[in-house]
């Protein structure tokens, strides 16, 4: 396979940027154009819900590359530029400022937060601008409700407690989730939140909200009264809804791509000839489960980007990404690596030091280690455990 002359990458966050950088690592010397609809140069998102929200970092600290560095790598970056359409046959990307022809296109447009069905005005968090707005609101909010029982809900609850606000964490389901680990850590997370003064309202469905005063307007004082299905209500100063993301594929609606849930790709990230997708927006075929699945984690975006760049540069297949994700909630460091069967409880693994942290594992039907979770784990123990995870392509549960 000869390498393409022009690569266009849509989405200038970690996935898109890593494709561009990795193409250069692989010796690709053609044109690379990276476009993103945000006004900022590429920055990392994980600190948004942590250091940025807690006020420990300024926005510049989340920046990844300077304009000069990108220029030095020969990566043309178009900020504030949105993709508006794709002609798969003609290999042309349409944008809000003209068309860009390409030999290879990489879609890395990520997701946008799903608005809460009852309270679309609630604050949410995806971009740097979202984080800075939310941070400003958090500076004055004394009573914060966080809606959403996933990792981001837990992180925002943690950031609000750091600021000493009263925090109510609301989830529709009866448990707390942790990405690909599912609800296997729910009891531990529940205990952790309770120990740090977060009030939990699980199996609680928000059915209405009444705004008093300026309510939810940015920078406003005033409160919102939340009404729940069980008839209770609660007045708060700030509502943050983190109930999941929607893949940003609306600009592809008129294209011929399969958009069942995000951009549907094969196990190498190919959506159509000349078109690949990486990161949160991409539903790669997962050889472990045999299903197309979107994975919304930073490390997945990075590993997919490295694999796609290697394939575009010289036709290699690249390594299959293994899920790796982490969080820090109320100062507790949680890391997870591999695959987790929601039906099987985690089993604690031996460790070498006498630190209070733990490493637990998820085993498949054959008793093989397929995933590990570190809970304030000694780093060496977590590394040893993850090196023992069986990552060969084999289903977690035998198909009958």
């Amino acid at each position, binding site marked *: 396979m000869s390498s393409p002359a022009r690569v266009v990458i849509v989405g200038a966050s*970690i996935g898109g940027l*890593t494709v561009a*950088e*990795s193409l250069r*690592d692989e010796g690709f010397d053609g044109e690379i154009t990276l476009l993103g609809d945000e006004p900022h140069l590429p920055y*990392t998102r*994980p*600190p948004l819900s942590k*250091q940025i929200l807690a006020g420990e*970092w300024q926005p510049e*600290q989340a920046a*990844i590359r300077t304009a000069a560095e990108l220029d030095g790598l020969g990566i043309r970056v178009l900020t504030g530029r949105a993709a508006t359409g794709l002609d798969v046959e003609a290999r042309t990307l349409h944008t809000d400022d003209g068309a860009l022809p390409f030999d290879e296109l990489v879609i890395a447009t990520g997701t946008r937060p799903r608005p809460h069905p009852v309270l679309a005005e609630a604050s949410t968090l995806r971009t740097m601008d979202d984080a800075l707005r939310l941070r400003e609101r958090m500076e004055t909010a004394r009573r914060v409700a966080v809606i959403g029982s996933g990792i981001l809900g837990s992180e925002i609850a943690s950031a609000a407690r750091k600021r000493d606000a009263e925090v109510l964490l609301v989830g529709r389901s009866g448990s707390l989730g942790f990405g690909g680990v599912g609800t296997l850590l729910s009891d531990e997370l529940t205990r952790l939140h309770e120990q740090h003064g977060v009030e939990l309202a699980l199996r609680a469905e928000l059915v209405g909200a009444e705004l008093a005063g300026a309510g939810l307007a940015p920078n406003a004082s005033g409160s919102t009264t939340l009404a729940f299905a069980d008839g209770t209500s609660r007045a708060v100063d700030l509502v943050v809804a983190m109930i999941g993301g929607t893949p940003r594929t609306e600009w592809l609606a008129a294209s011929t791509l399969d958009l069942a849930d995000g951009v549907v790709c094969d196990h190498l990230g190919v959506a159509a000839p000349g078109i690949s997708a990486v990161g949160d927006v991409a539903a790669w075929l997962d050889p472990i489960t045999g299903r197309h699945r979107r994975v919304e984690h*930073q*490390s997945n975006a*990075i*590993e997919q980007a*490295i694999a796609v760049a290697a394939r575009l540069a010289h036709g290699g297949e690249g390594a299959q990404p293994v899920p*790796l994700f*982490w969080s*820090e909630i109320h100062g507790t*460091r949680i*890391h997870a690596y591999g695959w987790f069967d929601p039906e099987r409880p985690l089993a604690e693994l031996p460790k070498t030091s006498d*630190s209070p942290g733990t490493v637990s594992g998820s085993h498949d039907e054959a008793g093989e280690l397929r995933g590990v979770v570190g809970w304030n784990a*000694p*780093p*060496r123990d*977590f*590394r040893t455990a*993850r*090196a023992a995870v069986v990552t060969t392509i084999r289903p977690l549960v035998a198909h009958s």
Partner: protein
Amino acid sequence: MSILVQTDACVGAGQCALVAPDVFDQDDNGIVLLLEPDPQGADLAAATRAVRLCPARAIALSTT
């Protein structure tokens, strides 16, 4: 080529110590420790891979 680490960005994922164990280690909190600021040969290749894999972009390769 030299390696720069930004410890306040590090999230302790341990990718670096896993792929380039002669260049990076982690302290008790998981934070990156630089063992070899000026790696050569295979260690440099491994360190380059670590730079790309770091989920926090906490390590960088400097040409100066």
